[in-house]
């Protein structure tokens, strides 16, 4: 599966948490809540392991070890793929077959143990940055993490069903830490799997706050690092794929190359086909590329001179170097112009972002034509634009969910101090700051009808977002 397809598949998964399958995306989430004052101390219950609980060491090593245990124990691997885990995510807590789940969780203990320890490590380095495989780096282990997260969430439900709220919270902590560790990974696939895991965990957190006696988690939510996911590292890595895959490309910038150096570089590019066990370009394709290089030479030269490369240097460069340097610079230039928009809120709606995206596509096409040759790189989506707006929408949706849950917990607190009554308006809650929706910067919409309240995220500007981008809680208070 190409990375683009993998990304899209993950975005879809991240958008619709499995637990919500009985509801349609965008349908209101019903919450039946008990009033709850703040615990003492107010951050007594945490949604991520406390800093003082963290042990030195690299979490990724233990996550990999969890995978290794699965690989070596075929029965565990079969077990973790069982469809019953998904079913139990949807089964109401009171209907869960506790005995069966207990036995299954016991089998899973070695894997959950590793994940539990990993979640409480101080660092997480997946040791995949700068890999020469570049965009061809296979990540089959990443998807399994989603299955592990499903088991973790079933564990949280199993504990909630028995009223063991501290244990359930521990499982939620592990899920959130796993998600954040994934999100700190060096590829966007890691980030997307992290998002998908957070969605799974959020659904259980919705369940958790509804449990009678559930502590008020307002400050636990507030204390979470924000933004919860930062894809900068993954984007940096995406920006460097060319030089990671062919370190020899750096030589293009370092003055005129010898014929032997050009040969070595071209050989390194061709060897990529072997690395991917793919058929290299045929004679016809190579001949066509030579023609295209010859055609592009004059423009390439002009462009390098315009960029300030000394004329005598450009003249002394072999034609391949001139054309390749031109194409590589053009790609980097287009990419930088593209990713600069990621710092702008709602960049997906900006016309210039769309134009920049098109430029990346053109620069990637030029790179294929002039330097890389062959169908392999096109098939791998090498250098093509990434639907960042969708990635960031996923990140924003996650932020919004935390904001909305903070409001929910503020309402529980208000009710605890006001005879179990709902506030008439969010501004009536004065004990705590009420967050705005971080996606739009606007306050959450809130209305009370009878003994029910509705909390909705405001719609962002522009066209109406798809249903999975909408969030509404329907709140009923227990008396």
């Amino acid at each position: 599966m190409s990375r683009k397809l993998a990304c899209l598949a993950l975005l879809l998964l991240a958008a619709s948490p499995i637990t919500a399958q009985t509801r349609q995306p965008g349908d209101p989430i019903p919450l039946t809540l008990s009033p709850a004052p703040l615990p003492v101390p107010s951050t007594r219950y945490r949604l991520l392991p406390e800093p003082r609980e963290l042990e030195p060491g690299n979490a990724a090593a233990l996550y990999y070890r969890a995978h290794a245990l699965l690989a070596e124990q075929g029965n565990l691997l079969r077990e973790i793929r069982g469809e019953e885990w998904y079913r139990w995510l949807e089964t109401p807590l009171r209907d869960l077959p506790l005995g069966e789940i207990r036995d299954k969780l016991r089998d899973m203990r070695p894997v959950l143990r590793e994940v539990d320890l990993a979640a409480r490590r101080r660092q997480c380095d997946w040791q995949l940055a700068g890999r020469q495989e570049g965009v061809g780096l296979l990540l089959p282990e990443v998807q399994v993490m989603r299955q592990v997260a499903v088991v973790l969430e079933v564990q949280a439900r199993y504990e909630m069903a028995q009223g063991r709220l501290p244990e359930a919270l521990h499982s939620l902590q592990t899920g959130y830490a796993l998600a954040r560790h994934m999100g700190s990974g060096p590829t966007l696939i890691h980030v997307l799997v992290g998002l998908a895991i957070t969605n799974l965990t959020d659904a259980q957190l919705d369940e958790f706050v509804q449990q009678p006696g559930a502590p008020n988690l307002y400050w636990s939510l507030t204390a979470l690092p924000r933004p919860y996911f930062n894809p900068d590292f993954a984007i940096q890595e995406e920006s460097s794929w060319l030089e990671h895959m062919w370190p020899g490309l750096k030589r293009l910038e370092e003055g005129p190359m010898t014929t032997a150096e050009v040969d070595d570089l071209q050989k390194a590019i061709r060897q990529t086909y072997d690395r991917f066990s793919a058929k290299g370009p045929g004679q016809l394709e190579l001949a066509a590329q030579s023609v295209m290089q010859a055609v592009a030479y004059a423009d390439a030269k002009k462009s390098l001179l315009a960029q300030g490369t000394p004329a005598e240097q450009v003249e002394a460069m072999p034609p391949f170097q001139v054309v390749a340097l031109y194409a590589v610079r053009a790609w980097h230039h287009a990419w930088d112009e593209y990713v600069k928009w990621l710092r702008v809120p709602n960049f997906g709606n900006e016309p210039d972002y769309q134009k920049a995206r098109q430029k990346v596509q053109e620069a990637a096409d030029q790179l294929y034509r002039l330097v890389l040759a062959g169908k392999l790189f096109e098939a791998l989506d090498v250098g093509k634009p990434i639907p960042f707006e969708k990635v960031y929408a996923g990140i924003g949706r996650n932020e919004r969910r935390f904001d909305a849950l903070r409001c929910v917990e503020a309402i529980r607190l208000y009710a605890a101090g006001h005879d179990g009554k709902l506030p008439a308006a969010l501004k009536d809650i004065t004990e705590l700051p009420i967050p705005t929706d971080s996606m739009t910067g606007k306050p959450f919409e809130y209305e009370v009808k009878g003994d029910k309240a509705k909390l909705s995220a405001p719609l962002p500007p522009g066209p109406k977002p798809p249903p999975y981008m909408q969030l509404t809680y329907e709140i009923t208070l227990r008396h």
Partner: protein
Amino acid sequence: MSRTLACLAVLLAAVPPLAAQTRQPGDPVPLTLTPARLPEPSLQYRLLPGPQELTSGNAASLTYRTEALLVENPSLLREIRSVKWIEWMALPHKDLPREEVHDRLRTVALLLRELDRAAHCRDCDWQLAGRPEGIALLLPEIQGLRELANVLAVRVRYEAAEGQFPEALQALQTGYALARHLSQAPSLIHVLVGGAIASIMDRQLEEMLEQPGAPNLYWALAVLPHPFLDPELAIQEDEPMIERSLPFAKRLEEGPMTAAEVEGAERQLRQLNGRFGTGPTHIGQEIVQAWHYGAAYAEAKRALVKEGMPGDQVTAMPVFQAAALYTLREYRRAWEEYTKWFAVPGGWHEPGYQQSRKRYQEAALRLDRLFFPENLGGGIPRLEKIGLVLDRIERRFAALRCVEAIQLYAATHDGKLPAALADITDVPVPPDPVTGKPFAYTVQGDKAKLDSPAPSGEELPYQKVRYEITLRR
């Protein structure tokens, strides 16, 4: 798999390298060699990645990741477990079905690349030290590494058979690095598996040296770290591992326990035994166990007072606490006396070691009787087995250095064998590191025999290293 069973399985697998199944352990290994000068520079080839080749990062993470890659790829997992690799390890180079091997190696290239990256990492932390599971920590991933080592070994054979020595050496480096990294882990099972993998690689190295055109690896062998396997962390971790398995161990030291606390400790013990199936299996064992507590109590009272504990405190202690405390203290002390010998090179051959070993065995047996009704058995570490593995690896490297010194001598003396090892003056000829004595060397006609003298009291055939050398003309 319990750790006891795992240890036994590893030892059985470690002793006779699979490729050597056609020879009996201790049989001489025939080597047909071509005279070979030292390469220029003499360290052009290495058996472990050179310091300048190392990159930052944790080798253990990438080794785990190699296995993790198998999770979503059942065909690759089947491939790794195929009996073909073991068959190919035993085939002479000339009989290898090279095309088929090449195709199979291509299939697993992804895994070998990951292992190669791991081999080049500067650090190796398996993240298993201090784990609260103690002896309950399962290590199923270890077996998978042995399977990967078989694949690596076949890669060495394939490359050597193709005359591609740099590539063969790269695979050997990866294998040796994996072996060494395993030996730096905090469990003795890791060390034993490391030893088994080093033995697999040794066998490939021997065969590679026979290939015409193979470089002289005298200095590559000479610069290997000594000891090659580094079990220090595993030894350090093993004693607290037992204690970590007994959560009440710390409480024993903190004044007399209440009846409720004793009950809690006994419950923990029952849970532990339940998990491992090491508890009493019939009423007879329970009676014997109770008797052991009684017997240990009398001795414990005397010993604890002698160690300086106030008499009234000892008297106030329940039988369980006094017996358990004394047993654990004695086990700890005996362990320290026992393991200190591993800080001395070859210390396990010293007479003092035997006394410490006896004391340790008694202490371990007492602990086993008290807590695990003698059902732990082989689960209590016997470090001399580690010593034997260390010896075997060191001795083979030293013997191979001699072999390479002989190849060098022949290259500068018209292809002739030296009459005696002392005739070799171009490079130092190492003694047998186990005995400290020179290797036995005899020449008969156009054949030479290099033999390791048996250390006193040790006649295990698989500990011997014997080469029968013939030079090509």
